[in-house]
């Protein structure tokens, strides 16, 4: 689905469903260099179980018009603007990785628009390895290869995708490569520069679920637990077999944790 946000084309999927104003809404925000496709094993479930789901392509990603936004704060404001364009007053927010930083800042800057918050494979800050950052800024394909290596735990590296026939490494590589035209570098740069995580987290009073992967090398569970400790009404869950891509590596576990969280709190 496409519409104009701040004069530029914004793309998001609702899993083919019309937005029903009587239903609660969840906005899903992807990680660095990814798109709405990374959420397919969560969004379709909620879309067919009483929720409006809005899985976005951030500006400059997927089918959303560029250029990519330069700061996490701008991205949080863009989500707010998108919801306003959709005439949605309040929404829950589910973020993955960089999407967690955006979630923190969305909650901090637009608290009146937030219902529930779920942060998957997140942390308070995401300082980037300088060499990886430079590779991505130079649109070097090695940045994609390194990222795809690091985001997958032992399960994702070998395989065993929840959807028969799909390859974690292959899917991930294609998704990120398609955004290695500047979006990946811009994302890494935005993560690297973001310093307001702790302040934002401490300002959040909404019920929050933090999901971590036991084998996450990008945002290890230690930093995930630190994030959760700064949010007053938060609950933490660690998925045993997951690396940094819990939404795909352990898609059903992630979906079930989200399902329980939303059922308990709606």
């Amino acid at each position, binding site marked *: 689905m496409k519409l104009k946000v701040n004069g530029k084309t914004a793309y998001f*999927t609702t*899993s083919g469903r019309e937005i029903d104003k009587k239903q609660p809404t969840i906005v899903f925000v992807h990680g660095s260099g990814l798109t709405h496709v990374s959420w397919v094993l969560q969004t*379709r*479930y909620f879309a067919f179980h009483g929720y409006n789901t809005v899985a976005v392509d951030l500006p400059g990603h997927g089918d959303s018009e560029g250029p990519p936004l330069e700061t996490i704060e701008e991205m949080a404001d863009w989500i707010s603007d998108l919801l306003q364009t959709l005439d949605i007053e309040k929404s829950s927010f589910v973020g993955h990785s960089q999407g967690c930083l955006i979630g923190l800042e969305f909650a901090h800057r637009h608290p009146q628009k937030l219902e529930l918050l779920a942060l998957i494979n997140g942390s308070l800050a995401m300082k980037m390895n300088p060499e990886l950052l430079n590779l991505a800024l130079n649109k070097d394909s090695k940045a994609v290869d390194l990222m795809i*290596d690091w985001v997958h735990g032992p399960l994702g590296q070998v395989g*065993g995708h*929840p959807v*028969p026939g799909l390859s974690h490494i292959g899917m991930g590589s*294609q998704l990120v490569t398609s955004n290695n035209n500047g979006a990946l570098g811009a994302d890494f740069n935005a993560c690297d520069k973001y310093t307001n995580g702790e302040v934002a987290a401490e300002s959040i009073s909404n019920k929050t679920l933090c999901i971590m992967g036991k084998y996450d090398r990008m945002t290890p569970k230690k930093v995930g637990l630190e994030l959760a400790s700064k949010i007053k009404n938060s609950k933490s869950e660690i998925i045993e077999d997951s690396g940094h891509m819990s939404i795909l590596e352990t898609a059903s576990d992630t979906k079930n944790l989200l399902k329980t969280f939303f059922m308990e709190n709606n």
Partner: protein
Amino acid sequence: MTDPKTYKFNTKTLHSGHQPDKNFGSRAVPIYQSTSYLFQDADHAAALFNLEEGGHIYSRISNPTVAVLEERVAALEGGSATLATASGMSAMMLSLLTICSAGDHIVASSQLYGGSFNLLRLTLPRFGIETTFVKPRDLEGFKNAIKPNTKCIFGELIGNPGIEIMNLPEVSKIAKDAGIPVIIDGTFNTPYLCNLFDLGADIIVHSLTKWMAGHGTSMGGAIVEKGEFDWTQGNKFPTMTEPYVGYHGLSFAEEFGPAAFTMRARAEGMRDFGPCMSPTNAFNILTGIETLSIRMEKHIANTKIMLDYLTNNENVSWVNHPSLPDHPDHDIAIKLMPKGPGSMIAFGIKGGRDAGQAFINAMKLTSHLANVGDAKSLVIHPASTTHSQMDKQSLELAGLTEDMIRFSVGLEDMEDIINDFDNGFRASQKPRLVASR
């Protein structure tokens, strides 16, 4: 900076797609000989049927053993997804029918396996899908054959049986300019000899029955998706982009992105046509793939020995293999497949059709049968067997001559195969006597 530590090719042949069994610790891939799978509850069942979550419902659609093979092939090819099928032909059929409907058009290389040629020439036209055939070296021909309703270019990198090499990088440029995907049959090259995605393919189809399985025991095919092709361009691929009523308005391109083609091929193709692979065949093919690299290395080494023998044999009128300097596609073949352009040899026997039949009848060790890519050496006379349903014009278009012997080089000690061939050539010098038996 350190290099990525994702697994390399040989490790993938052994491990990709398989997590050791949590219940019993089985290291080998278990054969899940089950038609169907218990649902956790009604909600889980509904979610599976609506593609809301991954999992298995019924083994026509997917099966845990077959899924390991699918992931392994995807990993070896560097694709986003793979769909395994009952045979190479069903892989080809499903790959085309996933994007083609009545009124659509295909541009195909004229150098194709006889079954593939007949599907395009005879069967698909009955369903309103027409094909224009182009000689694989005729780049201008590919360009000129594309029409507004053309949905893809189909070909084989190593043509069968003429062993012409398609200039895939150039054909791919033509397809990209036209906004259509290139579907390549990679059976003869396997992912060991080259990566077809790097060369410009968008979709790869395989007969896994051949070199991938490698032992002549099990039928199987695969469709592998690179995941890069933009199905939304030009409103040309409605099966990928328009809401599909069969799944509550699902748009495959929107929801599954780099795996959209595979998801549509499985959700619709396996549901409605049903050419599924058996789990036992998947197990056998997985076992074969574990030794793909060392088998292919040996196939290529043995091919060199046999080329040396055949090119110096007085009973042979011509030898066709892209590694030979006089092959018209030698340069492009070596460029695209530096490890060697396959282990299929075509040669002409002095004395024509009768001599060829006498040669084949005299084989004691080399098997006369309709297969290629076995560990055992195989020979056949295409004009009277695999391509016998083609008319004279089609035979000429495919580069087939009546004296042609197709030779799939196996893994035996080549000294023994040479002894067998020596006997065959001696017999071929008495073609009238043999023919009158």
